[in-house]
C-alpha cells in the first residue's frame, strides 16, 4: 500500500472505529492515528521533494498543514472530550460522535490536496463543509447553532459558485479536449494555450469568489469568525489551520491554469483586491475584539490576506513566502487555538475581559498562548516572521512599492491588535476565584509538539522543504 493510501485510510478507519468502539479506546487510537498520519505525510513529502510524481509538489506543500494539525489535534482531543463531558454532562454518545466526526473531517482535509481532478476537488471541499458544520453543531450552544447555520449556508452557496467555475473551465476546454473529457488539472494545463480565454477568465473569477468564501477571504468571510469562534476548540484549529489552506490549494490549481492561459496579470490583480480587503478588514476588527477565539479567527482572515498579497506580488520570493506562510500560519494558529481552549476552559469564559493573568494561572498553556500570539503577530524567531519578510521583500522586488507599503502598514495595525489582546490575557496576576496550576497531560504534550513545529519553522527551513516550495512555486507561478 502506498503512503497516500495509508494517510487516507488511517483517519477513515478511525472515523468508523470511533462509532463502534468505546471512546476510552477510540480517543488514544485517534491520538496515535494523528501522529502516524502526520509521519506518513512527512514521508510522502520527502518523496515529493526528491522528485516523486504522486503527490506533486503543490499537493505535498498543502498536506503539511494537515499533518501538523491532525498530529496535534488528535492528542488534544482526548483531553477536550473529557473536559467537555465534565463541563456539560455530555455522555458517551457525544464522545463517540465527536471523535468520529473529527477523524472523518481530518480524512476529508487530507483528500482535498491530493486531488487534481477538478470535479473531485470540488466534491472533497463540499464534504469538508458538511463534516465541519456537524462538528460545530456538536457544541450545542445557541451561538454554535447560529454559527453552523451561517457557515453551511454561506460556504455551500460559495462552493456552488466553485462548481460553476469547474463547469466554466470544462466548457472552455471543450474545443480542445472534447465534450466528454475528464476534468484533470494536468490536461487543462497542457492545453492552456488553446483554452477559451474568456471562459478561463470567468472560471478563475468564480473560483476565487467560490473557494475564496471557504478560505475566508473578505468580503466573503462573514461565516468565519462565527464558525471558528463558536465551534469546539479542536475543530476551530482544524478549520483555521488546515481547511483554509485546502481552499487556497483549490484556488491555486485554477490560478496555475489561468496564469498559463492568460498571463499572470489578471490573477495578480484579483489577489490584490481580495488580499487588501481582507487585511484591511481584519486589521481593524482585530483591534476591537472581545472574544479570544473570534480574535484568532480575525487573525486567520488577516493571514489569508497576507498569503493573497504574496501571490499578488508575483515575484518568486513573494510566491514562495506565500506558500511557506500557509504552513507557518497553520502551525501557529493551531497552537494558539489549542492554548486558548485551555484558557477559556479554566476561566469558564471566552471573553477577553474575563481572562487575566493567563501565564500565572496556567503556566504552560498561558505561556504557549503568549508565544503563539507573538508568532502570529509576526515577531522573530518564529516562522511567520520569515514568511512575512519574504512576501514584503518580494513585493518591493517586484516594484509594487506603494502596495507593499500599504500591506506593511496594515500588518502593523494587525500586529498592534494581536499584541494588545495577548498582553491583556497573558500578563498580570491570576484572577481571584480561578484555581491556578497545571499538570502535564495529553493536551500539554499536544501543545508542546505544536510549539516545537512553530519554533523549528522559524529557526530553520529544511532543504527538502525549500526544494518542495520551489517546485510548488513553479507549478503555481508558471508565468509569474
Amino acid at each position, binding site marked *: 500500500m502506498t503512503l497516500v493510501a495509508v494517510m487516507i485510510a488511517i483517519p477513515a478507519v478511525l472515523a468508523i472505529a470511533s462509532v463502534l468502539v468505546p471512546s476510552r479506546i477510540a480517543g488514544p487510537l485517534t491520538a496515535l492515528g494523528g501522529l502516524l498520519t502526520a509521519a506518513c505525510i512527512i514521508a510522502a513529502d520527502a518523496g515529493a521533494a526528491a522528485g516523486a510524481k504522486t503527490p506533486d509538489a503543490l499537493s505535498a506543500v498543502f498536506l503539511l498543514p494537515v499533518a501538523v494539525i491532525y498530529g496535534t489535534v488528535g492528542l488534544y482531543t482526548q483531553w477536550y472530550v473529557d473536559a467537555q463531558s465534565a463541563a456539560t454532562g455530555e455522555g458517551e454518545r457525544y464522545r463517540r460522535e465527536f471523535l468520529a466526526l473529527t477523524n472523518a473531517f481530518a480524512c476529508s482535509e487530507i483528500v482535498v490536496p491530493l486531488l487534481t*481532478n477538478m*470535479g*473531485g476537488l*470540488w*466534491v472533497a471541499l*463540499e*464534504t469538508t463543509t*458538511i463534516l465541519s*458544520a*456537524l462538528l460545530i*453543531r456538536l457544541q450545542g450552544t*445557541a*451561538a454554535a*447553532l*447560529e*454559527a*453552523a*447555520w*451561517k457557515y*453551511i*449556508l454561506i460556504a*455551500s*452557496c460559495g462552493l*456552488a*459558485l466553485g*462548481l*460553476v467555475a*469547474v*463547469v*466554466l473551465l*470544462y*466548457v*472552455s476546454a*471543450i*474545443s480542445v479536449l*472534447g*465534450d*466528454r*473529457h*475528464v*476534468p484533470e488539472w494536468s490536461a487543462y494545463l497542457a492545453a492552456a494555450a488553446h483554452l*477559451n480565454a*474568456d*471562459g478561463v477568465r*470567468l472560471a478563475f473569477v468564480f473560483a476565487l469568489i467560490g473557494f475564496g468564501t471557504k478560505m475566508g477571504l473578505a468580503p466573503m468571510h462573514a461565516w468565519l*469568525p*462565527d464558525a471558528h*469562534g*463558536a465551534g469546539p476548540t479542536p475543530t476551530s484549529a482544524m478549520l483555521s489551520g488546515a481547511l483554509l489552506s485546502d481552499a487556497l490549494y483549490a484556488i491555486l490549481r485554477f490560478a496555475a491554469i489561468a496564469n498559463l492561459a492568460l498571463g499572470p496579470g489578471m490573477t495578480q490583480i484579483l489577489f490584490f483586491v481580495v488580499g487588501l480587503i481582507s487585511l484591511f478588514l481584519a486589521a481593524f*476588527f482585530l483591534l*476591537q*475584539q*472581545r472574544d479570544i477565539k*473570534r480574535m484568532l479567527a480575525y487573525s486567520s482572515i488577516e493571514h489569508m490576506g497576507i498569503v493573497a498579497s504574496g501571490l499578488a506580488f508575483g515575484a518568486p520570493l513573494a510566491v514562495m513566502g506565500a506558500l511557506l506562510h500557509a504552513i507557518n500560519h497553520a502551525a501557529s494558529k493551531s497552537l494558539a487555538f489549542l492554548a486558548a481552549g485551555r484558557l477559556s476552559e479554566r476561566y469558564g469564559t471566552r471573553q477577553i475581559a474575563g481572562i487575566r493573568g493567563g501565564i500565572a494561572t496556567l503556566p504552560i498553556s498561558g505561556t504557549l498562548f503568549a508565544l503563539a500570539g507573538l508568532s502570529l503577530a509576526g515577531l522573530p524567531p518564529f516562522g511567520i516572521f520569515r514568511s512575512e519578510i519574504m512576501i514584503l521583500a518580494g513585493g518591493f522586488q517586484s516594484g509594487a512599492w506603494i502596495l507593499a507599503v500599504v500591506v506593511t502598514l496594515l500588518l502593523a495595525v494587525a500586529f498592534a491588535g494581536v499584541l494588545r489582546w495577548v498582553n491583556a490575557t497573558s500578563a498580570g496576576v491570576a484572577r481571584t476565584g480561578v484555581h491556578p496550576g497545571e499538570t502535564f497531560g495529553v493536551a500539554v504534550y499536544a501543545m508542546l509538539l505544536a510549539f516545537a513545529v512553530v519554533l523549528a519553522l522559524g529557526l530553520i527551513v529544511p532543504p527538502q522543504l525549500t526544494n518542495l516550495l520551489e517546485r510548488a512555486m513553479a507549478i503555481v507561478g508558471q508565468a509569474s
Partner: protein
Amino acid sequence: MTPHHLTIHEAIAGTVAALLLLVQLALFRSVVLSELITLYAVQSLFVAGICLDVGIAGGAWDLIALAILTFAFKVVILPIYMRGLVRGVSTRVEIPSRINVLLSLLIAAALTGIGWLTAAQLPLKAGAFLPTADLATMLSIVFVGFLVAILRPNAFAQVIAFLTLENGVFFGAVTLAPGLPFVVGILVLFDVLVAVVVFAVLVRILVALRSSAATTQLQELIG
C-alpha cells in the same frame, strides 16, 4: 450561413431551460412555504428531465442513472421530508420578502439579463448542448437564487434558495460538462441530501430555541 435545425433533444433542452428559469422567478411570487417546496420539486423535475434528455441524446447511461436518482431524491424524497419538517413547525408558514413582489421581479429580471449578457460574451459553441442558452440559464438561476436568499430572511426560504441555486449549477454541469465524472453527480446529490438534513436539525433547534425560523433573530454573533 447554413441554418441550424434543432434536433428534438436540443428543442427539449431549450424549452426546459426556459421553464427552469420561469420556476426560479416564480419563487418571488409565493410567500407560503409549502408552495416554495412545490416549486422546488417542479424545478427538480425539469432538471431530472433534462438530465435524462442529455443522457438519451448522447447514449450516456451514467446520465440516465443520474436522472433517475435526481428524480428520486429531489422530486420525491426531499420535498416529502421538507413538508414533514414544515408540518412540525406550523400548518402554514408565511415568509415575507424584504421588498415587494414587483420590485423583486424587476431586480431578478435585471440579474437574468446580466446572466445572458455574460454568457453571450463567451463564444462557446463547440460540442456543447445548446451552450449559450444553458450557460445563461445556469448563471441566471444562480444569481436569482442569491437574490431569494437575500430577500427572504427565513431559514426555510434560504434552504429553498440554496437548493434551487444548486439545481441551476447541476443543470449547467449536466448540459455543459457531461464528461464530469459520474461520481461528481452522485456526490452532488448526496451533498444536497446531507445539507438538507443538517438544515433540518438546525431549523428544529432554532425553532425550539427561538419559536421561529426567522434568521433576523440570529443576532448573537456580530462584529
